[in-house]
């Protein structure tokens, strides 16, 4: 079986007047089913850009992105929406919950677009929220919760559709270190349960939680290997120095 996620010379360029920003520049990577990968790099290195492509929220300017062996570039927008719904669970730095809806309603959303009945949606939302320790807040609005709790709601929403891939872009960015660790522990658990977890962070200590590190610099992959290699956390300049 081929890799679950495969980038073949993926480029994403933004043309801004005269200059072109190469947010992703010929990226090649393969992520297998069940891996826990952290994509790291400094601000502006292209992490979110590649995550958007992995998440089928965006398409590459050139190159190919294969998800489960299927070329995403050839899909129309409605097929992309379907893929997002079935294959991907998103966890965002800013949680991105719907402020006007309570927790159950928030978690129901992905199932709604899959055409699951209301009663079943509700049952599963409550189940997942309870697993994540939010059973006391089911009818609360997101704004009535702490940041850590809100992030758990967004994790519940990412999980409820049982997608094989979980994408987390700076999931701890807005949390203190203790709640951040809790969220990371949850991601670890998901990995142990067999999910493919792609974690995006600029924080090395968080990235260490993953088994494998992909480091980006200026839109290019500069390191791709195990997280226990010291080279994983050196910048390219430091690397040159070390040699």
């Amino acid at each position, binding site marked *: 079986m081929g890799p679950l996620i495969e980038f073949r010379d993926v480029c994403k360029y933004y043309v801004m007047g005269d200059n072109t920003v190469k947010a992703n520049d010929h990226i090649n990577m393969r992520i297998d089913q069940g891996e826990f990968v952290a994509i790291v790099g400094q601000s502006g290195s292209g992490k979110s850009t590649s995550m958007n492509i992995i998440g089928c929220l965006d398409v590459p300017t050139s190159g190919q992105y294969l998800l489960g062996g299927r070329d995403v570039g050839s899909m129309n927008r409605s097929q992309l929406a379907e893929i997002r719904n*079935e294959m991907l669970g998103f966890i965002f730095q800013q949680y991105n919950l719907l402020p006007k809806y309570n927790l159950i309603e928030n978690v129901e959303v992905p199932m*709604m677009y*899959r055409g699951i009945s209301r009663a079943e949606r509700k049952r599963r939302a409550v189940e997942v929220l309870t697993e994540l320790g939010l059973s006391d807040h089911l009818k609360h609005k997101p704004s009535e919760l702490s940041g850590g709790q809100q992030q758990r709601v967004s994790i519940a929403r990412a999980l409820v559709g049982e997608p094989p891939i979980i994408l987390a872009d700076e999931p701890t960015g807005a949390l203190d270190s203790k709640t951040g660790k809790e969220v990371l522990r949850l991601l670890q658990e998901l990995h142990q349960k067999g999910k493919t977890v792609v974690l995006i962070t600029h924080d090395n200590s968080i990235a260490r939680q993953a088994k494998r590190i992909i480091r980006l610099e200026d839109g290019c992959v500069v390191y791709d290997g195990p997280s226990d290699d010291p080279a994983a956390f050196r910048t390219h300049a430091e690397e040159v120095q070390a040699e």
Partner: protein
Amino acid sequence: MNLFDTARLAIGNIWASKMRTFLTMLGIIIGVSAVILIEGLGNGLQVYMEDAFDALGTSSIEVILMGRGSTRNADVEDMYQLLDENPQALESMTPTVTMSGVLKIGNETYSKTAVTGVSEDYLDIKSYEIEKGRNLQYMDMKDRKAVCLVGSYVDQTYFKGRSVGETLKVGKNKLTVVGVVAQEEEELREGGTDDIVLLPYTSAARYSMTGQISRYTFTATDPDHSDEAVDLIEARLYEIYGTESAYMIVSMAQLLDTFSSMLNVMITILAIIAGISLVVGGIGIMNIMLVSVTERTREIGIRKALGAKETVILSQFVTEAAVTSVIGGIFGIGFGILMCRVATKLVVQILQVKMSVIPDAQSIAMAVGVSAGIGILFGYLPAKKAANLNPIDALRYE
């Protein structure tokens, strides 16, 4: 996502911003209620007019002789002959001699009372009844008797209900009241249908200056024979006068037709003008939906990231616009019906006219349909804008 979920979301969103939604609806509410009020007025006028014509007799035909530029004149005999020769189309006839401002009772002059010379068939033609005393008779005509009938108003107000046998004066001529016409209108009033004096047309002709009878009222056997009857009268009068300008024939059926179609044109024009405010209401909805799409850009991004297809977002916003518009339409119907009630009261009180302003079910159904259509039409553009949003841009939107 099924229709039920879509509707539930739409109603939820509308409920979440009640005040704004209400203001958005105002245009539709005003438009729909205006259309309903106008339709109601139109219907009321139509019914009122038909009633009024009914009272005059829809099968009645007025003939007015001017006799201009001719040597020979049509007289009562000609008219009776015409009636007798055409029983299939013409049912009855009465000459009418109008005398104005000439009624005197005791020393008082009553100028508002209508004094008319008629034949013994007049009451039948008008479908009036005799309440007391007797009707005018053929002999009264023949002998030009100085007798008369009075209306209930005259009987009640001027004779305290005891007019039969009393006398009154028309001009200088003393008449004896032989009968009272039963009350026609719901309320007796001066100058109304019951404020009348009827005397033999022969007597009236003699009292008047010219001694000529220039007005006749025919009735057709039924309203469907009205046109035929008009043709017959026309033919005979032309034969006598040799010119069309010597007489005038007015058929109530034709008049009603003319008035009805004029009224219809007027009401349609008014309804179209009111309909323009529906379009303005639709533009209001479009405007607010565009604002709403911008405000909810992030929500749209989130929904898209979670798998909402463009068609789902599109139908969500279109549904919201349509539901807003239909609710506006329903409020508009309620408000319109209320305005119709108020209008009915006002018309009755101020104009002293019995008319009810009632919209028909058809125009109500149309109002709902039109408002839903407007919601969909004007909601489409903002909804399309929402559906086309790029999910990453939408997610990044603050």
